[in-house]
């Protein structure tokens, strides 16, 4: 599949074919109700190696956009490519093999009797040898400070511990593309720092993170997009954006809170 297919307006005959961007979104429209869509024509592309923040006020559609990216919701119109593969019903298994997604609410994704089994669930589906999966899961849970809780069920964890378990379960898949929906929600400052470190060392190709935690996200990402009124209204380096109090304030993201 050539790049021109992905984004015909850019490629010119004779050009060397540039590398395929990891994620391309084109004119994405999505609404929960017929009229008045939440996402009104979103386009962007994420290159390999980038770490991107997705910002925006409550209810602007960040979670909705992310769920569209991995095919959990079908857009009304528009196209999405993940590593060159168009996201469609038929390609979902392949797309999902490459993408790790962590839900905003950790309860949505933990369901095995113990969190250890939960972390082993994903690798098990891809045929990883159980012993190896067990070793990896134990290591991951220990990294996330849950070594004492491996045999507990979700219902016996605190809010922050659930979040950490959900993150471990997603990282166990060793995804090429990582999409996290408000990963610091409910984490204490110590774990926020720890998570920033863990994420910075992960060998993933692209990382897209929705967050309301401007200070934290500025330590983890280099590029930031702001979603407002259904479109991407700002797309610039995170550092620059955080200098620009005026724009932030305009987008409902005052820096001091």
């Amino acid at each position, binding site marked *: 599949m050539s790049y021109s297919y992905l984004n015909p307006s850019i490629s010119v005959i004779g050009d060397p074919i540039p590398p395929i961007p990891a994620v391309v979104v084109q004119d994405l429209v999505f609404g929960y109700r017929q009229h008045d869509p939440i996402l009104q024509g979103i386009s962007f592309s994420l290159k390999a190696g980038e770490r991107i923040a997705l910002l925006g006020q409550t209810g602007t559609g960040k979670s909705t956009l992310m769920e569209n990216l*991995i095919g*959990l919701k079908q857009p009304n119109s528009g196209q999405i490519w993940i590593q060159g593969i168009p996201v469609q019903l038929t390609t*979902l*298994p392949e797309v*999902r*093999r490459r*993408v790790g*997604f962590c*839900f905003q609410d950790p*309860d*949505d*994704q933990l*369901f*095995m*009797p113990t969190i250890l089994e939960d972390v082993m*669930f*994903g690798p*098990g*589906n*891809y045929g990883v040898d159980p012993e190896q999966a067990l070793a990896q899961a134990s290591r991951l849970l220990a990294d996330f400070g849950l070594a004492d809780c491996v045999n507990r*069920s979700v*219902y016996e964890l605190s809010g922050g511990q659930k979040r950490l378990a959900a993150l471990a*379960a*997603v990282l166990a*898949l060793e995804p090429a593309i990582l999409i996290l929906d408000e990963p610091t929600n409910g984490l204490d400052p110590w774990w926020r720092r720890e998570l920033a470190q863990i994420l910075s060392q992960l060998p993933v190709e692209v990382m897209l993170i929705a967050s309301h935690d401007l200070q934290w996200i500025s330590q983890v990402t280099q590029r930031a997009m702001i979603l407002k009124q259904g479109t991407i209204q700002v797309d610039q380096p995170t550092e620059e954006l955080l200098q620009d109090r005026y724009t932030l304030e305009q987008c409902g993201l005052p820096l001091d809170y």
Partner: protein
Amino acid sequence: MNFNFDEYANFNSPLHRWDTRYKIIGLFALMFAFSSVEDLRLIPAILTITVLFYSLSQLPLKFLLRRLTYPGFFLLGVVGLLPFLSGNTIIGQWGVLTLRQEGCQAVLLIASRFLAIFTLGLILLGTCSFLTLVKGLRSLGLSPILTDIMLISYRYLFQLGHQFHTLQRATQLRGFQPRRLSWRNLQIYAALTGSLLIRSYQQSQQVYKAMQLRGYGTKPPRSSEFTIDLYSAIALLITLLMAASLIGFELFL
């Protein structure tokens, strides 16, 4: 999951104005009278009554048709073979297929009864909101425990459905693709089911706490005042008369 039963609950037809409690009694009496019909000659009568009520309710026809399809097919599945299996009077024969008169009559009877009763049921549900209906049942003496269970589980039906859907998709995101029946797959389905149960159990306890924190059970629920409204009473009387005459005809004709 969205069933939109309350879509037409705000119309102002004669049936919408009919007090919910009287309406429940009247329509139920009529439905039971319909189900007691076994004489083919009464079929035109019950169908006429049905059409009358449906047109009085001012509900659009598509409301009925949309909901009729699935149970209609289901019914055909159950009784579809009767014309070929049941009865001694043969009215047609093609090879191994024998069409029998009694079977045909039975299907005609069952299908008409089904249509009439189903339509009346829809009228009952379509002409008031679900909440009003439950309140009506409650003031007719249905146990408040049962009505509370109904209201809360109605509310959680959608939420748990949604949660379960999300949970299932979370398994797909992590590569779970049940294409065949295997021990592991069955076990994962069992884990999903178990999670759903535990989650709802857990949530029910939290919800009970939250309800208590906000004063649930501190005050006996106000019993709705029982007013007698002439229009509703007369409508009930007429309906009961119809039901009684149907049963009378059935018994003495």
